[in-house]
Every structure is written in structure tokens, then in C-alpha cells.
């Protein structure tokens, strides 16, 4: 059994390509901008323009789906979970605050609920990370 695999361990754990992530963000931004532009047009757009807009939205969303699919295929480790949960807390709290300031206290309620959910995620993510750290410490890893 002197045969060797045709791929290396490094290829197995290759991180998600930054290009794909950038394309996904650009696609989402472009699709959103065009959709907003289309939705806020006062009159009816010509058929060709609507077809062009629809095509561009589909292209943008396709890149977004590809980027999301690539990200979902990679493992979500404890450190990623904690970072993700922190971001969720910050952004949901900001959404709640801005909504409440602009449209009144009731408008901030959905953001508040999202913040509560994000805090719960953060607590669970930190507990999981701490449990793993203590297991690693028990096995002699500093």
C-alpha cells in the first residue's frame, strides 16, 4: 500500500475563498440597490428595462447564494460562534435603538426581541467555548 491520495490535507481544510465572499457581498449589494431603485420608480418601467433589472437581480442573488452555500459548508467552531453572536448583539441592539429613536419606542420592540435572542446565543456560545477550554486544560493543553 505505497499509493498516496491525489489530494493533500491542506486542500481538505482550505478556507472559503475571499473572492467568493466578496462576490457574494457585491452581488447582494447590487441586487438590493436595483430592487430598491425598481421599487421606488414612480412610473411603470419599459419592458426591456424591467427584464434587465430582473436579470441583474438574479445574477446578484446567484452570487450571494453561492457565497452563502460556501460559508455554510465550512465548520462553525466555538470561536466563530462567539464572534457571530457578538456581532448579532451589536447589530440587533443598534437596530432596536435606531428604530426607537426614529419611529418611537414601540418600533424598537422587534429589535429588542432580536437583541434578547442574540444575547441568548452569545451566552450559549461562551458556555460552549469555556467548556471546551476546560476540557483542553484537563488534557494538559494551556
Amino acid at each position, binding site marked *: *500500500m505505497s499509493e498516496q*491520495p*491525489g489530494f493533500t490535507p491542506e486542500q*481538505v*481544510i482550505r478556507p472559503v475563498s475571499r473572492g467568493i465572499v466578496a462576490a457574494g457581498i457585491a452581488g447582494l449589494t447590487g441586487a438590493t440597490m436595483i430592487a430598491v431603485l425598481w421599487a421606488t420608480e414612480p412610473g411603470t418601467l419599459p419592458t426591456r428595462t424591467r427584464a434587465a433589472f430582473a436579470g441583474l437581480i438574479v445574477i446578484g442573488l446567484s452570487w450571494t447564494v453561492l457565497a452563502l452555500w460556501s460559508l455554510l*459548508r465550512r465548520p462553525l467552531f*466555538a470561536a466563530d460562534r462567539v464572534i457571530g453572536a457578538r456581532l448579532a448583539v451589536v447589530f440587533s441592539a443598534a437596530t432596536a435603538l435606531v428604530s426607537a429613536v426614529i419611529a418611537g419606542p414601540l418600533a424598537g420592540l422587534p429589535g429588542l426581541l432580536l437583541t434578547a435572542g442574540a444575547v441568548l446565543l452569545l451566552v450559549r456560545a461562551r458556555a460552549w467555548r469555556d467548556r*471546551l477550554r476546560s*476540557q483542553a486544560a484537563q488534557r494538559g*493543553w494551556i
Partner: protein
Amino acid sequence: MPDVNRNRRAAHCSDVTDRQRDALLVIRAQLGDRSALTELVGHWHLPVWRYVRAMLGDRSRADDVSQEVWARALRALPRLRQPERFAPWLLTIARRSVTANIAGGYDRNAPDEPPPTPDGAQMVLDRTQVSDGLAGVPLREREVLILFYLHDLPVDDCAEILGVPPGTVKSRLNRARRLLRDRMIEKGYDA
């Protein structure tokens, strides 16, 4: 002692160390330590590929299926709750991928499971002999030989990976040894 791998007994100490090493690497990888993940994959890259290669008998398919195994394993790794069970867990994933890629499945023309019997055909086999004779052994028996002899796994771990009781693993091992012995005799080895 028909269910004890003699290679395994000799390598017991290093096996315990390997389990501890894997467990720590799994925990560090679950924490997000990229170097631990690289080391873990580096240790198991070849064993997984060899298992798949021996089961499928085709190198290019072994490459494809092994990469599929790693994609599944890495996605599920953060949810592995028993890091010391990494080896049987990984090989279970490998077995499922192999099963999905074998045309006709394992059970094609497979005989009924006989009850566990005393090991009348036991013989001492080394890894090279096992590897040489594997290609001529049916899949069901081949996989138990690979797990028990080439991966040095205990019967309980083999049972977990194969999804059968330990007694069935023992009876398959007995039959597999007999089949392998027949193949070896055909190839010119002495019984």
C-alpha cells in the same frame, strides 16, 4: 482469544496515546485552533484514504469519496461531543460515504449472518499479507478486516462503525479470516 488483534495488543500503548492526542486535537479544533485542525486532518488523511481505497478498489474514486468524507466530517466536527471517540466517528462517516458509492450496495449476494463460532481458522496475519489478500474478499468481510487489522480498532469500535453487535463482528472476522486464508493460499502463501 479470537477477538483480540495481536498487532493491536502490541500497539496498545501507542493506541491509547493516539486516542488522547486525537481527543485534544479535536477539542482544540472545536475551539477554532486552525493548526490543531491541520494536524488532526494530517494524521487521518492517509488512513481514511486507505480505507476508502481498499473498499472501492479504484484510486480516483477513492480521492473523490475521501474528499466527500472530509467535507462531511469537518462540517460535523463542531458537534462531536465525545472527542475520544473521534476514530470510530470518522470511520463511520467514511463507511457511510463508501456505502453510498458502492453500486448495488453491500448486501448484494451476501450470505446470511451465521451465529458466532469458535475461531477454528485463526492465524497470525501481518498488515502486508492482509493488504495483499483484501481485494479478493467480499466487501462485508473486507471492511471488518480493514478496521480490525489495518486500523487496529477493537471489536466494540468495529461494531459501532458497522452498526452491528460485537458478536456479529466476531463472526464476520472468523469468516473473513477463512476467506482471506483461502485467497492467500491461492496466491501461493502457506497456510
